[in-house]
């Protein structure tokens, strides 16, 4: 048991370091991704450079522009890349989820058309699954795709998607649609790729309670797509979506935001109940200990996952617990920090609040993190069912024609 690279890994790390030293940006270029920010040009340039050197998707086969590498090599690259002031990465959903789906289900021409530009950052993709009425239940999608009445074999897509990350700057998307409302919900769906510049597509940013707008609503009005844009068989879209979602798990990041170390630093400098530094308060010290232990537990759980990858194994179930812990901790820690500030904690002006209002920002963002990418409750269900092998919830919607399913509408 150690934290060392294997000789092969060490060699790969050295190679990556050398390349990054020579090629990575020397200074940061803004970090506001929301709304396409000023960093987009830098992001695209960095992506193109990585692609040219084979570092854009290391685990992809060489014929797609990857290195045919293993997951630990990708991890090593990510670790080393993070030491440089790199611009944000708006390509991950496309490269991690959408393009592999297209590549699996589209014909060779389509694959050839899309893989390269996506890899080089020239085209950005988004994933259009969630719907207002669906929430955690992707198979409940109501967005309709019907054959065009002109007999061309084209499809017309109408409906609404929601919580679409990056839709505002995406060029293409994959969208799951209802094609047969008479079939049970999982059996009447079909997947298509769409051009996000189509005039029938309207993207509206969602105004979050935290103030930002990282997600979008996407409205489809008679968007015409060719039958060749279909991915997989008609009414077989649920299976296609599973391929996409399988890739999602590896892409979910942990929480950022103010952590135990920031809390400790703040506590050191604040007056506590008796005027002495708040860090002397045993109640806060116990909380600090708990948060530290959780954070370390997650860190070393990631180390166990990486070890499995390094040994060529599939990571164990332990890798599924990250967000469930970090989102709740973010909320609790921010809550405790704001209370530690006492009356002053209500102030969220970055010019006035300690740490530029990081605790207040966390407090307003945490409720979203507890929901995005699977609510606390859905994640516990997933652990219970997929990891522990407990039975699924009782399903009342398995064999009911979709159109007859109760929706409360």
């Amino acid at each position, binding site marked *: 048991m150690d934290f060392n690279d294997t000789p092969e890994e060490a060699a790969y790390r050295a190679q990556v370091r050398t390349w990054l030293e020579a090629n990575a940006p020397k200074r940061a270029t803004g970090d506001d991704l929301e709304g396409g920010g000023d960093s987009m040009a830098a992001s695209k340039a960095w992506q193109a450079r990585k692609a040219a050197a084979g570092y854009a998707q290391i685990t992809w086969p060489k014929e797609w522009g990857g290195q045919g590498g293993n997951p630990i090599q990708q991890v090593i690259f990510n670790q080393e890349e993070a030491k440089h002031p790199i611009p944000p990465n708006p390509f991950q959903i496309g490269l991690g989820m959408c393009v592999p789906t297209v590549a699996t289900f589209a014909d060779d021409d389509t694959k050839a058309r899309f893989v390269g530009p996506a890899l080089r950052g020239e085209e950005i993709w988004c994933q259009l699954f969630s719907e207002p009425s669906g929430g955690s239940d992707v198979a409940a999608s109501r967005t309709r795709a019907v054959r065009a009445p002109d007999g061309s074999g084209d499809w017309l897509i109408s409906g609404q998607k929601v919580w679409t990350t990056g839709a505002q700057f995406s060029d293409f998307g994959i969208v799951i649609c209802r094609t047969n409302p008479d079939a049970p919900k999982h059996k009447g769906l079909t997947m298509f790729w769409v051009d996000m510049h189509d005039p029938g597509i309207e993207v509206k940013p969602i105004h979050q309670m935290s103030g930002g707008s990282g997600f979008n609503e996407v409205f489809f009005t008679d968007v015409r797509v060719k039958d060749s844009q279909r991915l997989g068989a008609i009414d077989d879209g649920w299976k296609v979506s599973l391929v996409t979602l399988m890739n999602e798990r590896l892409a979910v990041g942990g929480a950022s935001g103010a952590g135990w170390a920031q809390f400790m630093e703040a506590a050191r400098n604040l007056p506590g109940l008796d005027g002495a530094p708040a860090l002397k308060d045993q109640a806060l010290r116990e909380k600090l200990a708990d948060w530290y232990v959780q954070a370390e537990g997650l860190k070393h759980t990631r180390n166990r996952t990486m070890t499995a990858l390094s040994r060529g194994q599939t990571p164990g179930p332990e890798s599924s617990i990250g967000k469930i812990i970090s989102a709740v901790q973010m909320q609790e820690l921010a809550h405790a920090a704001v209370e530690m500030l*006492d*009356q002053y904690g209500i102030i*969220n*002006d970055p010019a006035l609040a300690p740490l530029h209002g990081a605790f207040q920002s966390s407090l307003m963002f945490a409720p979203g993190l507890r929901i995005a990418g699977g609510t606390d409750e859905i994640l516990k269900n997933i652990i219970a069912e997929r990891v522990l092998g407990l039975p699924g919830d009782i399903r009342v*919607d398995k064999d009911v024609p979709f159109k007859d399913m*109760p929706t409360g509408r």
Partner: protein
Amino acid sequence: MNFDFSDDQKFLKSEARKFLDANAPTGRVRQVLDDEARPYDQALWKAVAEQGWLGAAIPEEFGGLGLGHLELCVIAEELGRAVAPIPFASTVYFLAEAIQLAGDDRQKAGILPKIAAGEVIGAVATSEGPGVLTPSGVQTSVTGGRLTGVKIPVTDGDIADLCLVLAKENGQPGLFLVDLNGEGVTREPVKTLDPTRDAARLTFKGAPAQRLGAAGEGFALIEQVFDRAAVLLAFEQCGGADRCLEMAKAYALERYAFGRVIASYQAIKHKLADMYVKNELARSNAYYGAWALNTNAPEMPVAASAARIAASEAFWFAAKENIQTHGGIGFTWEMDCHLYYRRSRQLSLVAGAPRVWKERLVSHLERRNAA
């Protein structure tokens, strides 16, 4: 045993709800939320004054209705439920209570009628910066009837006419009344987690100040003022927490996932049951606080602390788990969930954070049990 509000008080409550449903729907609250230039809802404030609520607990001789604190409690609960964007707490729970508690006849006669009539907005200024304020930490001072120092944040400091300020005079803490429209006062609005309530930084440079209560008694007095306010704030918190439970329940009963309403899943059912339990415990503690407030009982510090702690916990839990029950839509600006999340923070912090009250509670219990 008669541990509940009277029928008359319950009638007042239901009338207050009707009034606020008509005059303070969340669409009106959002006008304050979304417009930085609008620190509070002036029309609502005027209407509330016309209802007589500002003087509900002020004696008739000073222009109030002379009802009592129990009546104020039921009004507070409804204001909390409505997340009303008005300086009611600052004016009524803090300033009017302070003056009734410690004011001399001239102060009472001069100020209380104006409060009851809606002519004076109040504020209370204790905090001077991040962290807990202890007696030795007070920097603001009064010399020769002139007050100098900085207070931040002051809830409603940007719109108030009269401010109660904790400051030192001859090295001893005292409470002082300052006319915020007078000389030597600079106000700057500060941004907070709850934009539906106003807040400011007040900079005093030789502002004329008159003492409220005895010299050197400022800290003991402000604790008594906070105790009284804590009970009333607890009712606002109970009102907000109950509204969150209602919202969560209504949404859970109409939202379908996997072919059935989400209210049929135990994860949601038990979450709502937890909310209910916390809300009821908070309500019971608030009732005891109301009794202590209304009877001026010696148990007041303990009762007020318990009411504040339970209500802060209940509202926080209900506000955050209401968002969680709503899922993604609960995180949007358009849904009202965040109004309650924000207000739960405002009410928890405005009279000092719950951890300060826990310490206060245990100190009192310690003394009581040692005696």
